[in-house]
């Protein structure tokens, strides 16, 4: 029997509190070994790791690339895999490979298979894909079953055809199905981070509200502690609540720090929407067990009458090239707002002599207005600025042509009152132009209204 079958059978026969180890909120960026090993010493019933997020932007999803380096990803995967196999407990990984589309999942699976081979591990692995079927989605748009999230414009059939990748965030159900398939390891594509940790307790009949609340906290490892950090965290769940304890003795889970974590990356601190219902934290209570452990209770769960899957998709919009430079000239800096658009016109007149204006060219002046939404009027000008010019064009060559032309004419642009006639900008190195690669944007951020939220995420099992 494999790990999930063993744990389910053992706890169904002899019910006791469940012990869940949150190993990492961002697998691939490093799992601190001392806290992870301390977690293993506490004999958890499962290890979970979240591996992705939409926060990293559209390019990883669109391009099918991981945000983490292959070396650190392999190191982290090997650490959690060896840990889970040493205790014969399930290892559950969600949002594989940063964005959870087929390319990310397959790259993650390739690393897992390679580790199994080189470390001579044998196990049963469930694979849950999260890619959204295009034809099904187009049918759903026609049937009025797709709605925009947070004022996102309506999804069109063209958006669906143009997207490089479209994924749905699976909920807890597909993970539960995988656990019931008697496996040792579950690797899922794009998933709600709660699914990773709520599947085992809900499969065992622990209250859904508590299970999902616990899952929402431990998926970020020790971020809910003071000081917050990436060390592994242990949750011990019973039928009335759960106790949180960081596996780094210097991190304390206090009632306030854990309660405050419910704010993180959420637009509403009291409600968390999941595919098949909503977590209601209105009556959640947080009490200290001792100075570094908090007990949490009171979360409620409301089944949804309108189950939905959150869809994410990214579309290629061109090739990106950038120019990096700085200026320390007070007259240039003072006039930069007016001067840079004029440089853009000079560039356009040159690069569009024999070609259409098929690109965008933007400047960000760091030190002035590179970061903020709004700059207060009358703010003093800095002594030096960093300037980034960014071009998005149909081809890599075109984008490169635009930023190289921009560099030369920004360097030598004549403006009223100019004193430094040998050059307007400084380069820390040359070439100062960089081809960044394809650029993407999110074109799908919608809810798919669907009766069976789990049917979209089939579970395959592979024996290694």
């Amino acid at each position, binding site marked *: 029997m494999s790990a999930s079958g063993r744990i389910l059978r053992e706890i169904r026969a002899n019910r006791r509190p469940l012990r869940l180890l949150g190993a990492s909120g961002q697998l691939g960026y490093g799992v601190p070994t001392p806290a992870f090993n301390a977690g293993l010493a506490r004999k958890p019933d499962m290890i979970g790791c979240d591996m992705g997020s*939409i*926060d*990293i*932007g*559209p*390019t990883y999803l669109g391009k099918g690339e991981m945000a983490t380096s292959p070396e650190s990803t392999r190191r982290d995967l090997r650490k959690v895999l060896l840990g889970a196999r040493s205790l014969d407990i399930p290892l559950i990984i969600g949002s594989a490979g940063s964005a959870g589309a087929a390319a990310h999942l397959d790259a993650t699976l390739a690393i897992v298979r390679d580790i199994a081979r080189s470390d001579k591990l044998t196990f049963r692995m469930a694979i849950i894909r999260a890619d959204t079927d295009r034809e099904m989605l187009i049918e759903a748009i026609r049937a009025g079953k797709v709605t925009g*999230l*947070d*004022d*996102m414009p309506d999804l069109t059939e063209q958006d669906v055809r143009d997207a490089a990748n479209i994924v749905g965030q699976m909920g807890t159900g597909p993970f539960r199905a995988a656990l019931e398939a008697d496996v040792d390891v579950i690797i899922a594509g794009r998933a709600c981070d709660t699914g990773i940790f709520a599947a085992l307790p809900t499969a065992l009949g622990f209250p859904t509200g508590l299970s999902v609340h616990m899952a929402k906290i431990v998926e970020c490892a020790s971020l809910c502690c003071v000081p917050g950090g990436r060390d592994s965290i242990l949750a011990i769940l019973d039928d009335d609540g759960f106790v949180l304890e960081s596996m780094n003795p210097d991190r304390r889970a206090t009632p*306030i720090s854990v*309660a*405050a*974590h*419910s*704010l*993180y*990356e*959420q*637009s*509403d*601190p*009291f409600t968390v929407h999941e595919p098949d219902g909503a977590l209601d934290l209105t009556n*959640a209570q*947080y009490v200290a067990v001792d100075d570094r452990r908090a007990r949490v209770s009171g979360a409620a769960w409301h089944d949804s009458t309108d189950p939905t899957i959150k869809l994410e998709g990214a579309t290629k*919009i061109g090739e990106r090239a950038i120019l990096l430079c700085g200026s320390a000239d007070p007259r240039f800096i003072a006039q930069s707002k007016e001067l840079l658009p004029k440089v853009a016109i000079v560039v356009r007149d040159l690069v569009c002599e024999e070609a259409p204006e098929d690109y*965008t060219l*933007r400047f*960000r002046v760091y030190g002035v207005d*590179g*970061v*903020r*939404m*709004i700059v*207060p009027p009358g703010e003093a000008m800095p002594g030096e600025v960093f300037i980034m010019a960014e071009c*998005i064009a149909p081809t890599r060559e075109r984008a490169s042509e635009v930023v190289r032309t921009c560099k030369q004419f920004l360097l030598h642009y004549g403006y009223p009152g100019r004193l430094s006639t040998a050059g307007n900008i400084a380069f820390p190195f040359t070439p100062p132009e960089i081809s960044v690669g394809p*650029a*993407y*944007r*999110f074109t799908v*951020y919608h809810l798919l209204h669907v009766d069976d939220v789990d049917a979209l995420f089939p579970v395959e099992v592979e024996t290694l």
Partner: protein
Amino acid sequence: MKLSEIAQVVRSKNAGPRRLTFDIMFGSDEDYRRVAQSPGLSAETIGGLYGVPASEVAIFPYPVGRAIKVVLARKIMAGDPGDFDVYGAQQHAPLLGIEL
């Protein structure tokens, strides 16, 4: 007194690619109450700082976490051309100087 002189945490982050969320946290219930009751931290003030109408600023008092949450729509979706803060983690600065 300025918000930065009383708050323990003032942070911004995306809540999905189309919303920006600000968490303001305090070290004591007294500090929390003082700010939560202050007219300085209003939808009008915050809307003015970010160039959005007050009706589009949502403020959630969260006493159990000694915190106040503010949510705004992003003007540019995360990662779209022209975005300047994909994670939204550096949009908190205008709040620091709010007079309470």
